[in-house]
């Protein structure tokens, strides 16, 4: 009566077995983690040590060793969400275009008359010309500088838009170019943040782009988000400039070819610098923390050949003059050039602590961020609290588990035991799936599992109650069991689909904790459907076939 084709039996049992096997490593988390680390180190070519061998022996190689990733809230670490100010780059692009525009218009000086750049908002370049009548010619000339942008939609788009506004010529980035620039900026930022975080030697950092202009950085095991921000938050744009004048006025008059930057350590000291840098951080090939002659922390650096030559020539021509080392629009120091510095290496001194000089060296090696970044969210979870959460989650899950199982056994007897066995398999399957798809288990995720424990029995309850009813209607045991499963099916499917809809919406819209919860809830619904409809049914039918009882009590 309760036929179950052999292939189906085998398949269900195999899936259950796979679930248990893939869950197993998570029961020995620390040991498996060490074995995995040792194996990875050996594969990377490290010399085997006795500790590594011991770690390897801790977990046999033929067993699966995929672990469920623990979220930051469980293992502790730092989490930072930043926004890249992608618009910064537009201004830089226009700044770089200005000399070209000037030259193009100079060629037409006979027609357009005087050319003067007008100060305006950062997103546009405005040039006033003397002869308004020649505006069309001027626009055409500047348009000649633009280049086509390859886009999927905007065929024929150019990188800059040129228009006339009275006697002013306005150049802006086109929408297509803005999108392309944004993407480039984001990719560069991701790359540089990754390099900086890698330099600190932390393990398994997550660095992800989120949405249009955001980057999420998660570093497990890091002491605080502040430390992380110190590494990734700084633009670290290094330039060397010729100094024109030192002044005490914050609003000193400067011309278009000059810059006014404050000193980093001295209050009220400002430097007027030549706008064009002599060399910049991009031309660095190496930077290391070191010490100056007086034994104070400093950063030593080396330029690439082109940078070295430019720096060498500059120092040769300007002996006795000061030059400024500028980091993120602040003058670190402005030493006086004592002699020609050939060879392209040098030292940056300032009021550094050892920590600061080490950090600056890392930042310079990894390179400058293409744009400034702004912090939107920062979170730190201490390892203690993470361990607390794991412990609390473990105890709560166990208690929930035992309570539900006792209750089920008391209510349904033997059938309750079948359901309990299925419940254990259910949790094993959730963990196996989490490990296989590489999902991350968070504290809300544990809550999702605990909730699943409570709700997973629902499908079995529906079935058992239905079998009871059918028995009451004086059906034979086999028929009652069969009808119980059949009639409970639509309620089970409807009930689970509705909860599943909620889980999917949570996953799609939610972020962070909500998402972690939705993953385990969704997986829990799938596995509990499987265990209720397939596994307990298999147990019941195997028991029934073996015993052939005349009457049953559910």
């Amino acid at each position: 009566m309760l036929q179950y084709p052999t292939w189906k039996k085998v398949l269900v049992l195999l899936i259950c077995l796979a679930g248990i096997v893939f869950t197993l490593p998570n029961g020995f988390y620390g040991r498996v983690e060490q074995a995995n680390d040792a194996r990875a180190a050996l594969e990377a070519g490290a010399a085997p040590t006795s500790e590594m061998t011991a770690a390897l022996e801790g977990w046999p190689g033929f067993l699966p060793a995929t672990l469920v990733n623990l979220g930051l809230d469980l293992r502790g670490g730092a989490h930072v969400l930043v926004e890249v100010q992608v618009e910064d780059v537009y201004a830089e692009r226009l700044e770089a275009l200005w000399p070209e525009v000037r030259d193009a218009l100079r060629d037409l000086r006979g027609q357009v008359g005087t050319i003067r750049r007008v100060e305006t908002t950062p997103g546009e370049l405005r040039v006033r010309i003397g002869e308004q009548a020649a505006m069309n010619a001027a626009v055409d000339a500047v348009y000649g500088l633009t280049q086509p942008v390859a886009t999927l939609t905007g065929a024929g788009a150019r990188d800059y838009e040129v228009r006339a506004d009275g006697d002013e010529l306005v150049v802006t980035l086109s929408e297509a170019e803005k999108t392309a620039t944004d993407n480039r900026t984001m990719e560069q930022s991701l790359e540089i943040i990754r390099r900086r975080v890698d330099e600190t030697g932390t393990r398994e950092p997550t660095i992800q782009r989120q949405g249009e202009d955001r980057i999420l950085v998660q570093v497990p095991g890091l002491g605080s988000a502040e430390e992380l921000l110190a590494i990734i938050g700084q633009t670290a744009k290094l330039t060397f400039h010729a100094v024109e004048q030192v002044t005490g006025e914050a609003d000193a008059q400067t011309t278009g070819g000059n810059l006014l930057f404050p000193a980093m350590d001295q209050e009220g000291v400002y430097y007027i610098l030549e706008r064009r840098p002599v060399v910049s951080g991009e031309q660095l090939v190496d930077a290391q923390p070191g010490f100056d002659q007086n034994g104070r922390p400093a950063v030593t650096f080396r330029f690439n050949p082109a940078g070295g030559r430019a720096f060498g020539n500059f120092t040769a021509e300007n002996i006795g003059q000061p030059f400024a080392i500028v980091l993120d629009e602040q003058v670190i120091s402005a030493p006086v050039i004592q002699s020609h510095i050939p060879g392209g290496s040098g030292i940056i001194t300032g009021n550094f602590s050892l920590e600061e000089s080490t950090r600056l060296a890392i930042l310079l090696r990894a390179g400058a961020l293409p744009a400034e970044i702004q912090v939107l969210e920062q979170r730190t979870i201490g390892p203690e609290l993470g361990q607390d959460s794991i412990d609390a989650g473990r105890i709560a899950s166990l208690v929930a588990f035992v309570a539900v199982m006792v209750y089920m056994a008391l209510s349904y007897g033997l059938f309750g035991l079948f359901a309990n066995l299925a419940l254990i398999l259910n949790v094993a399957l959730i963990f196996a799936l989490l490990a296989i798809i590489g999902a991350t288990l968070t504290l809300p995720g544990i809550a999702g599992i605990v909730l699943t424990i409570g709700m997973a029995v629902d499908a079995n309850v529906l079935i058992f109650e239905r079998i009871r009813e059918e028995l009451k209607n004086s059906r034979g045991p086999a028929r009652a069991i069969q009808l119980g499963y059949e009639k409970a099916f639509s309620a089970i499917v409807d009930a689970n689909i509705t909860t599943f809809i909620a889980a999917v919406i949570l996953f799609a819209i939610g972020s962070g904790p909500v998402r972690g919860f939705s993953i385990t809830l969704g997986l829990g619904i799938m596995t509990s459907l499987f265990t209720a409809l397939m596994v307990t049914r298999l147990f019941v039918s195997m028991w029934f076939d073996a015993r052939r009882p005349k009457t049953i009590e559910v």
Partner: protein
Amino acid sequence: MRLKLVPEQTNFDFFRHSRLTLGLSGLLIVVSLVLFAVQGLNFGIDFRGGTMITAATETEPDVGDYRRTLGALDLGDFTVSRIYDPAAEITGSVPNQVAIRIEQTDDDPAIQADVIVQVKAALSETFPGIRFLQTDSVGAKVSGELVQKGVLAIVLAVAAVLFYIWLRFEWQFSVGAVAALVHDVILTIGVFSLVQLEFNLAIIAAILTIVGYSLNDTVVVFDRVRENLRRYKQTPLRDVLNMSINETLSRTMMTSVTTLLALGALYVLGGEVIRGFTFAMIWGVIVGTYSSVFVASAILLRLDVKRDWDKEEPKSGTSFADVDA
């Protein structure tokens, strides 16, 4: 002998006082809305922006000392509260914890990373050996988006459910189910407004799970109603509804109790971090179970279902409804 919460055969009339119960639900909804309007919710930093620091000291902390130390820093509004974990004995969580919440002082979209550094430095000086267990800081820009997303998630979930039930049953069922859902969501918000527990992202997740759970419950009852409507074509709707609810009562209690057992364990032992979440869930399970009968079914009774069902359920839209019926 089996443990049975509900006798084998029950014959309650669930609609004898339906006017009263519906009125009560309506009243509670109004009270919840008024509470929400008057005292609002105690939004966490996820939704309001700001900084939250959990710290622990070796010795029993004096909240006054914390207040004095932080007060000297000119941070704007801040609150310090002691965290008690009643289950600390069992779970062995870190003792002597305090929570410090610092409000965002201006509209700067970026958070004040400097403030955190400053606060931690000052506290480390006053309380040597202090450990910072958790620091969360959310800028106004992100928190605004999180509010939008949270509301959107709830609205979308309810809409999707409305559609699904309409597809699987009749529109009257759909209205009944959604009325129950809205009832549950509003009452949950009401209770959070009443007790002023922190309302954060996790609570949104809890509300969505309540939506799923409450629906689960309603659907099981409705499924039986549909079945009985087909079987007893002449029986008045009220009797069919009562019969269906009585038949599923044992299952309803069973599932509610198992879920509450699991949630109870989580509430007591799961630690401070998810206590608000489990509180919402426990409340939601109780309210959700109540509303399946006294809101969803009562509204279904009032709306009346058309009874000219064909012998065979039309295939469209219900292709897997009765695969084996």
